[in-house]
């Protein structure tokens, strides 16, 4: 029998602290899920205090240390608001790790260029950590508070280039500007990896095509079951002679940018 790729377990909160004004960092003890995690995968959390809101909430896995994993999240809705009030020793139910993640470049292979919008950074830490080649992270956000975990990428020896729309941190403008500048300096042996809001992913996809560099995108689509049965989180994927809906939770969240049928997206 094949070893499991996903498990369901009750996980204990080790810490759940505010990282900036808007963001929280949750660390949980998860002896069965943590060792299985691949870069770009997610955990599906059941936040029991939600009561009448029944569904689990998906979160990209940020870091894995021993038998723990962490997530970075923004308290924006009912689920994340309640999650932010949970305390150490409280329990959550987790299913994970889920989804098809990033392809870690082989040793001597491509030099990774990471493009992150806001807390899209979180989904790419493990990729940076496990990549044999160090690369560059381009991270963008609206304001300074949207830029997270820069120092943790720097600690891995990565070059971090931040942009903010209001200029309060790093270069003023969009994250794609320094990316384009970098690609103009050279594209050979480089590969893009991106996670962030859909308009950013679409822009990265266009840039990858223009400069003829490969790109892997972590797609964000409203999700329900997380394991491939409900068919909520589908996106259009090219099949050669047309397109079909594939599941962000199972075939994704990470897709080769050339396969995404943008013309069929809403």
């Amino acid at each position, binding site marked *: 029998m094949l070893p499991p790729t996903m498990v369901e377990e009750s996980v204990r909160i080790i810490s759940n602290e505010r990282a900036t004004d808007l963001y929280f960092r949750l660390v949980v003890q998860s002896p069965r899920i943590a060792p299985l995690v691949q870069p770009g995968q997610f955990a599906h959390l059941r936040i029991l205090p939600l009561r009448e809101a029944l569904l689990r909430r998906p979160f990209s896995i940020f870091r894995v240390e021993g038998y723990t994993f962490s997530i970075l999240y923004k308290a924006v809705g009912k689920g994340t608001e309640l999650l932010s009030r949970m305390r150490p020793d409280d329990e959550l139910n987790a299913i994970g790790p889920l989804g098809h993640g990033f392809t870690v470049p082989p040793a001597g292979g491509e030099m990774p260029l990471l493009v992150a919008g806001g807390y899209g950074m979180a989904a790419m830490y493990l990729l940076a950590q496990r990549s044999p080649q160090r690369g560059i992270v381009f991270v963008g956000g609206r304001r300074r508070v949207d830029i997270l975990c820069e120092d943790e990428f720097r600690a891995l020896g990565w070059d971090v280039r931040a942009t903010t729309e209001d200029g309060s941190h790093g270069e003023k403008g969009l994250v794609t500007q320094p990316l384009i500048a970098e690609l103009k300096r050279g594209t050979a042996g480089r590969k893009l990896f991106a996670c962030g809001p859909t308009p950013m992913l679409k822009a990265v996809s266009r840039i990858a095509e223009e400069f003829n560099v490969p790109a892997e995108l972590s797609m964000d689509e409203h999700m329900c079951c997380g394991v491939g049965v*409900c068919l909520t989180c589908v996106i259009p994927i090219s099949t050669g002679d047309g397109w079909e809906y594939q599941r962000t939770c199972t075939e994704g969240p990470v897709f080769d940018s050339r396969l995404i049928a943008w013309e069929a997206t809403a």
Partner: protein
Amino acid sequence: MKSEARNPKPEVANATREVNLSVQIGGMRMQNPVTVASGTFGYGVEYAQLLDLNQLGAVVVKGIRLGPVRGNPTPRTVEVASGLINAIGLQGPGVDGFIKKYWPFLKELKVPTIINIWGTTVEEYAEVARRFDELGGVGALELNVSCPNIKEGGAQFGTDCKLLSQVVSACRKATRLPLITKMSPNVVSIAPYAKAAEEGGSDALAVTNSYPAMAIDIETRRPRLANITGGLTGPCIKPIAIKLVWEAAKAVKIPIIGMGGIQNSADAIEFMMAGATAVAVGTANFYEPQTALQVLAGLRDFLQRQGLTDVRQLVGSVRVEKV
């Protein structure tokens, strides 16, 4: 959810010798009355790592028609208070795609597979039924005459007694497999539809499918589903489904598989008391994949506590004074 329910105590496991849990749906024997609702369990294989499928009464797969179906645009689901509205649009691989991709896994299971089928014409239903009859090894067919999310087919057959009767009879002629007709809740009275399905040759009824529903985002003033409307499921529909099971059970002699918002064994027992011989866990699979097995463990406990020896003693046991 609770680790206790997930790992049934040893004494409960021993009790299987004393309590009969098996039920019969037409010619299909189920080792216990707990199954899953079509569309909430994929093709079984997706959950194989999270629970032992061989402990279920049966596995029920998502609706299949003759050819592949792309499904509706997104957003396809929206969470509402104690429920979920969906408009997936029966995305699926078609008969050939299903047989190639999913049947090799399903046919090895020790428990029966119930295949939910649909079409846009009476002939298509019959043809799909014939194809699965030919395949061999299928437990039963569930006729989806009640999906609210497709323009043609589905609920149009389940809300017209004459069409319903034609679909069931045509499938009856096409196969000897047990037929389960999945009833639409969207009717004034379920009794004549239940009778039409029984007279057409259905071996059982599945009661019920989702309820037509809608949700609006007040900030954008747009419907929350790309399809505008969808089907409501989850705990919020349970009391309505219980009433439908009770009414259908009074109208027909064939067994009923009850479903609609089951989250725990108490919910399942309620359905059985209303008249269901078996039950299906639906939306709960999306948030707690262990639900069906928890229901089974709780059902066993209840029978023991009540001193009952056979799960069938629960069926239709609601006490209603004659008026």
